[in-house]
């Protein structure tokens, strides 16, 4: 919850904080990208394919799901399933970002490539539309640069780096998402949506293919919106 000190901080401080957070999440993403590059090459993709995937697909969870199936012995078609399911949440993100993105069609087509977890969370944690667009752009640039730099380093290093879990890399992503989600919990209905979505996802993990639980968590919106409307009356 914001204290009086937070309310009185200047706009400049706030803008600095957005830049710092964008850089911070970029670095975290870059570290994780190194492990993606390593795992992708060891799963059987070439370094060129690994780097093209990071530049163009540019949605980490889908990329990890893809190479995870390959590493487990699945074929390319089997690998596409969970990767596409995980990517489909970006469609929901794109809809939620529509009000703050530029109005020109060409700008929207460019911006679309950068509609991912990190940019959406950073943009939605801003109160003013112009701050939201600035946060979106800064995060997009930071994450894209570090994601591809990290991928390249990982792909070149190959398997020489050892197990990324030794360094706790896999624990960094939930922490990053938690830090990004926390400010959004102030919205009416948000805590209810978060808890119901997360519980539904966990229940579905053993029951559905990889990727489905996170998408099914969208159903958490229903109790969330009901709670928000109930509070308004």
């Amino acid at each position, binding site marked *: 919850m914001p204290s009086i000190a937070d309310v009185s901080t200047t706009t400049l401080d706030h803008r600095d904080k957005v830049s*710092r957070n964008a850089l911070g999440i970029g670095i975290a993403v870059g570290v994780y990208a190194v492990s993606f590059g390593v795992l992708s090459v060891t799963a059987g993709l070439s370094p060129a394919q690994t780097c093209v995937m990071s530049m163009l697909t540019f949605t980490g969870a889908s990329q990890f799901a893809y190479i995870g199936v390959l590493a487990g012995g699945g074929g390319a078609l089997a690998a596409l399933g969970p990767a596409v399911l995980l990517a489909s949440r970006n469609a929901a993100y794109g809809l939620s970002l529509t009000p703050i993105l530029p109005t020109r069609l060409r700008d929207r087509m460019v911006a679309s490539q950068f*509609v991912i977890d990190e940019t959406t969370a950073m943009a939605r944690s801003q109160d003013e539309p112009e701050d939201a667009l600035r946060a979106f752009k800064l995060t997009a640039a930071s994450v894209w640069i570090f994601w591809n730099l990290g991928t390249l380093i990982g792909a070149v290093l190959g398997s020489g780096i050892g197990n990324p879990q030794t360094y706790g890399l896999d624990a960094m992503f939930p922490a990053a998402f938690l830090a990004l989600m926390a400010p959004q919990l102030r919205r009416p209905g948000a805590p209810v949506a*978060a808890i119901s979505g997360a519980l539904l996802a966990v229940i579905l993990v053993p029951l559905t293919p990889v990727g489905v639980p996170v998408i099914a968590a969208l159903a958490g919106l229903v109790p969330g919106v009901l709670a928000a409307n109930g509070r308004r009356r």
Partner: protein
Amino acid sequence: MSWWAVLALCVIAYLLKAVGPVLAGGRELGPRMRGVLDLVPVPLLAALILTQSLSTGRHLVIDARLPALAVAALLVWRRAPFLIVVLGAGATAAGLRALGWSG
């Protein structure tokens, strides 16, 4: 390994991202619709947090990632900077694993 699936994933991923901004672009949304769309990332992020902390593939597991998430939650609650939250969680998991706890 063939290129076609890699490129197919690139194209599909882009089309999914572009559905909202390109098709719904420039239209005014009512306040009720905006309220709903504002909430969209929250359950998805919450689901990512828990599934990435508690599952490996289709198995629910409790390992070093759960205490790491607890440390992250404590740091977020104490209003720690973003990078400290992320590194704190990573260091917790790495430390526990170095001590031999694999869950």
